């Protein structure tokens, strides 16, 4: 196989999105750690590093546009660039949710602990595993793995319902806990949204690998 000019750029683009994926994954893990371990310093670090993630998003956007304009990719090359261009803002939004969790952690860490965070780590662990698998599936172009990850979104959805009801009961039973519980509700919602975004990434993985659109279909 001959070496093409576009190969070097596609490799660079792949490196960049994997770095972004790694940074996003770290942001989610750290934000949850900051919450569970009541570590406000770590939460601040998540907030600081979000700027780096935003910058990475811009670089990938520019590079994708440049490749489309100058190299006019086709077939798999085209699907790759389109997938990267669509996955990038999803990762950036996941990182924004991580920042919002970090914000909530800073507030909650100044209040007495109102709930044993048992469900949150489970939910966060599921979200983190899904994100990692989605990125692995992207790298290895494994559409089977992508489909399995998509199914796991239901686990997060049911955890969310459970957490939601528990927090609601807590607010009713103990009105003093309302502020803290409300923040926790938001954290749960952020995790639930992250699950949805990971699902979107996996749908794009399937597009990359099989050229099939499974979004808004029964398969997704």
């Amino acid at each position, binding site marked *: 196989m*001959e070496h093409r000019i576009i190969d070097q750029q596609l490799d660079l683009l792949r490196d960049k999105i994997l770095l972004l994926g790694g940074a996003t994954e770290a942001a989610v893990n750290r934000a949850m750690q900051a919450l569970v371990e009541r570590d406000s310093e770590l939460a601040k670090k998540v907030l600081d590093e979000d700027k780096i993630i935003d910058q990475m998003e811009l670089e990938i956007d520019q590079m994708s546009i440049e490749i489309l304009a100058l190299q006019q*990719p*086709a077939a798999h*090359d085209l699907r790759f660039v389109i997938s990267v261009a669509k996955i990038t803002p999803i990762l950036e939004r996941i990182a924004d949710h991580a920042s919002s969790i970090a914000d909530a952690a800073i507030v909650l860490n100044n209040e007495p602990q109102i709930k044993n965070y048992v469900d949150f780590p489970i939910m966060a662990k599921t979200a983190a595993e899904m994100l990692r698998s989605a990125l692995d599936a992207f790298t290895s172009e494994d559409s089977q793995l992508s489909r399995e990850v998509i199914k796991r979104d239901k686990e997060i959805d049911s955890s969310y319902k459970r957490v939601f009801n528990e927090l609601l009961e807590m607010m009713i039973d103990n009105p003093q806990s309302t502020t803290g519980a409300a923040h926790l509700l938001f954290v749960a919602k952020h995790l639930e949204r992250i699950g949805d975004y990971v699902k979107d990434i996996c749908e794009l993985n399937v597009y990359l690998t099989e050229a099939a659109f499974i979004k808004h279909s029964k398969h997704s």
Partner: protein
Amino acid sequence: MQSKISIKDLDFFYGKAQALFDISLEIPEREVVAFIGPSGCGKSTFLRTLNRMNDTIPIASVKGQVIIDGKDIYAPGTDVVALRRKVGMVFQKSNPFPKSIFENVAYGIRINGIHSSKEDLNDRVEKALRDAALWDEVKDRLSMSAFGLSGGQQQRLCIARALAVQPDVILMDEPASALDPIATQKIEELVVELKKNYTIVIVTHNMQQAARVSDRTAFFMLGKLIEYNPTQKMFTNPDEKLTEDYITGRFG
């Protein structure tokens, strides 16, 4: 899909050397079909089998069938002149006759006796020039030499000349490869416009051109048809790895 042209098990030989191998392909009416492939893959040779242009090569021979409107054009007794009127051709290098703009277009109408009067001849020339998107640029200088036109205009004049004899099918062999991007764009717009009334087969080295103008694309290599699919599929998700390698520039 209503086939205008059906090619069945076509082999083509230059003497003993086989240039096309067992090609079968359906070309639907009023669509644009692009032939792509590396140099020497047989795409131009194949194009020229569709109006028996290869008959002019003494050592050329053909096996198989090319059926246009239900008739095999290689059947004995085929009127080749009538065939070439029905299946017109435009070449890579524009080749106007050393005559006026008007006469270039009128020539085919005259020798085929298509017109009924001088007025009818004028109308037919105007219509052909209009259909080739050239009328507005030349209407005030029809008696001037065709060689005074730009390369792109000369190529559109050749298209007008092909259209004047009322063909059904137009074969184009790299019609824009010698033109600048603006002239190329005009030819491409014209191709898209012409498919409302004609079936068009276009050979091109320019992959983006095939992607822009055609409904279906056929990819040839070493005299074989590797893949034939809707153009949209061909350029986003081809079935064959060879096609993918070619359109993404892995060889060629």
